[in-house]
């Protein structure tokens, strides 16, 4: 029976075209992911080469004045890109994965953006997560919207109903065949991805896979529920497409608008202006006052007294430091606003399977806002570490050529935050059970004629 149903399903020209289309676009998404991965790799290599040359060249020019040298040289911190990131590029195309900073004021450098073609950002990537989120449901809908209703409309349903002992099982088998084909397709694409993109088969890959399967099942559950209402094919098609439209476009967009308007971030602009003024006004203020503030922040540097000259590097870096110190409030506020944004959207997403899946996939792939915020925090730490290392050297005017410049390699930030398995899986699981339960009840209540 099952074999026959499967043959019947796969024999249709529409099915074959649909599956083939999805397979091809699935592989295209892997190609795009691969290109992204390569670009990231090249950038990291480039950054390492650049940093080495850049430091060497500047160290040769400014060999007498380490304070001046450190005015120029930049140090890079890389946000580690996991291979699985190619499957869910997320916000990694918007945000830079490499930060380049000098030890001067950080707030003016921290938010430097990546170079981008806004047209690409607007249309979005065709990564695997797009194929999964947008296109799989469409095919699921196309395969299932006319289950029973089509047979009823063509008048063959009565024959089926008389011939099979349990029509409900018959319907389940119809779904089973479809679920099987699409999970097989998904597995095929992900296996190809694992080989082609060299994704390690570790826990995060399996969570990614499990989540994808659950997401597909969610859409089958939606179709199952709608089919259980036993309306005609046209009604099913319209209502399923409307549900798709809601879950994929309207709700996410509405929630996004809500969150952006609720947590506005004027602090971002405020921050840059404050930072600029706080630093620059010090040029026209009493030097000792600035340096005293600096001592207050770093008591360990009190031993370096302000030289009796018009200009000194101690004073200069104290001024730069004040740019950061006096805009710290705005910086904190911005950070907490962004965290609120992220938390609020994750919370709301729990109730919207499509959003939840996208956010969770990005979280596994370390390409969401959370990762970006952690990277920014790590940039602050990285910058502070450099400052603490170089400040005493600058204040002592340590000889440039005695520094081990070759030790300053590009550093990498690895985001090890773990996502809770339950939080990832549970919402989708509940939705699935709920829809299947209601669908079941509908079938039991109403005789299928």
């Amino acid at each position, binding site marked *: 029976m099952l074999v026959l149903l499967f043959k019947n399903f796969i024999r249709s020209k529409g099915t074959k075209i649909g599956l083939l289309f999805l397979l091809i676009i699935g592989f295209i998404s892997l190609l795009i992911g691969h*290109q992204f991965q390569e*670009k990231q790799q090249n*950038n990291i290599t*480039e950054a390492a080469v*650049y940093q080495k040359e850049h430091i060497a*060249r500047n160290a040769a*020019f400014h060999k007498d004045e380490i304070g001046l040298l450190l005015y120029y040289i930049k140090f890079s911190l890389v946000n580690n890109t996991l291979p699985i990131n190619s499957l869910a590029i*997320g916000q990694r195309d*918007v945000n*830079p994965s*490499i930060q380049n900073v000098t030890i001067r004021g950080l707030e003016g450098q921290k*938010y*430097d*953006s*990546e*170079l981008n*073609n*806004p*047209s*690409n*950002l*607007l*249309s979005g*990537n*065709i990564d695997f997560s797009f194929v999964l989120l*947008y*296109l799989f449901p469409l095919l699921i809908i196309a395969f299932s919207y*006319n289950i029973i209703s089509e047979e009823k409309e063509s008048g063959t349903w009565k024959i089926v109903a008389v011939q099979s002992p349990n029509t409900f099982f018959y319907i389940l088998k119809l779904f089973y065949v479809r679920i099987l084909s699409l999970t097989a397709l998904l597995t095929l694409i992900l296996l190809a991805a694992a080989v082609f993109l060299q994704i390690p088969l570790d826990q995060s890959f399996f969570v990614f896979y499990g989540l994808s399967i659950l997401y597909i099942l969610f859409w089958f559950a939606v179709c199952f529920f709608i089919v259980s209402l036993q309306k005609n094919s*046209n009604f099913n098609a*319209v209502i399923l497409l409307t549900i798709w439209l809601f879950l*994929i*476009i309207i709700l*996410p*967009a509405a929630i*996004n*608008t809500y969150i*952006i*308007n609720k947590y506005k*971030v*004027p602090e*971002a*602009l*405020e921050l840059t*202006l404050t930072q*600029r*003024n706080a630093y620059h006004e010090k040029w*026209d203020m009493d030097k000792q006052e600035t340096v005293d503030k600096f001592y207050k922040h770093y008591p360990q540097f009190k031993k370096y007294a302000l030289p009796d*000259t*018009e200009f000194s590097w101690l004073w200069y870096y104290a001024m730069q430091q004040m740019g950061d110190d006096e805009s710290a409030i705005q910086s904190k506020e911005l950070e907490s606003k962004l965290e609120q*944004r992220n938390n609020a959207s*994750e919370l709301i*997403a729990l109730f919207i399977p*499509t*959003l939840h899946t*996208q*956010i969770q996939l*990005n979280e596994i792939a370390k*390409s*969401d806002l959370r990762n*970006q915020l952690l990277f920014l925090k790590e940039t602050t730490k990285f910058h502070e570490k450099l400052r603490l290392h170089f400040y005493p050297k600058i204040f002592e005017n340590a000889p440039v050529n005695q520094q081990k410049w070759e030790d300053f390699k590009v550093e990498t930030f690895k985001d090890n935050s773990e996502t809770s398995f339950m939080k990832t899986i549970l919402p989708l699981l509940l939705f699935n059970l709920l829809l299947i339960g209601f669908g079941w009840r509908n079938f039991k209540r109403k005789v299928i004629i």
Partner: protein
Amino acid sequence: MKLLHTELLIARHFKNSVFKNPALYIITFFIGALLLFAAFSGWDNYKSQNETSEKYQHESREDWLKNPDKNPHRMAHYGNFAFRKSTSLSVFEFGMEPFFGNAIFLEAHKQNTANFSEAGFSNSMLRFGEISIAMVLQVLLPLLIFFIGFNAVAYERENGTLKILLSQGINWKQLLWGKILGVASVVMLLFIPTIIILVLIWLMLQDFSISADETIKMLLFILFHFIYLMFFCVVAVLVSASSKTSKKALVSLIGIWLILTIILPRTTQAIGAYLYEAPSKIQFTSNIEKDILKQGDSHNPNDLHYKAIKDSLLRVYKVDSVQKLPFNYSGFIMTEGERISSNIYNRHLEDLLKVYAQQNSFSKAVSFLNPYIAMKNLSMGLSNTDYDSYIDFQKQAEKYRYIMAQKMNALQVKYISNKKPGPNDKPLIIGKEHWADLEEFHYEPKSISKILKTEIVSIVSILLWVILLFVLIRIAAKNLKAI
């Protein structure tokens, strides 16, 4: 009116039959609510964007002027900001706005990136799209039209009423036009109130004092959306007329909608981005740095290029050291350095923009196959939220930055003594009254003629589609069969 009597009758009849369906009220109500939501959030967004941008633009200008007497080069590093402002039509069409950086810090020697885009501060939710009036008009209304129109002829065919209609002396042309008018009249019930609200909001935003430029943009915005929606009405009726069953009509129409609005826009842009790979920031900046070093490094005391300049200056002024020159030497060198580096930067930027243009060329070409892309590009152009507007903003900011840096250099050359102060001397300064010499940054959105020039492809594409549909209606009217 006698002329179109039959068509109008069919149209009225179709409209009545559509309104018998209770689901339509729900959908209409819902889309109405969505439009209101879009209008409100668009307004809110626009106001807060422009208020913050104006506030900080003003604040940064005040800060600039408030600076005490100092060395002009300090001022060049103090710098200015360019904050992006939106135009009033962007209330209805957000376009690429969320991906635009909102502020550029403008300082000497350095071209900074445009920072603080909405997208950078959002999680992946933003990538699902946004709800704007334009999005409702361009994406949702076409689908609604298809949902209303798939039955138009196919249902009559299924029911057998089509034969009766045709045997009563109505010809196919009349039937098709009647049905098209019928679908259109339903859609107009949503479109016309939307446009009225749109115009009112738009007038209120500018306090009822409107410029000719803005008015033309608004009129074109309305006109082309009208044509665009009519296009979908015609497609719906044509597909319905040529399908055997209403189910087939519905499935084909949904397929068309998905391909036009969801799949093609993303795929074509992705193909462009895949084929023409753009350099990343680190490559871009390191290439610029390399080229500048080739030309001459003003920070390197032994650089050949600058040494040559120095020697020739000494020769012309017949002095033996730069300290004896009658003007400020380092100001002169910085002027030269700024000129060289900004030339090189602009050259690289042009190359980069060429790559971006190549990436976008696919979608542009596909707008001939896809009226959605054509409409989207045109409406983004009109509302100043398209790619070109953003590049235009960045170029205006860079131009201002260059003028600012060179003005400060000129002040230094002219007023700052050429004698280097000793370690304990007071720094050399000039009066603060000079700061006002530099005008405030003012961003001028593209004018309508420029927009029409860049969007000519979209306009031609939409017009071609209109012609094609007229032809198709003619062919269909001749060849369609009742069964």
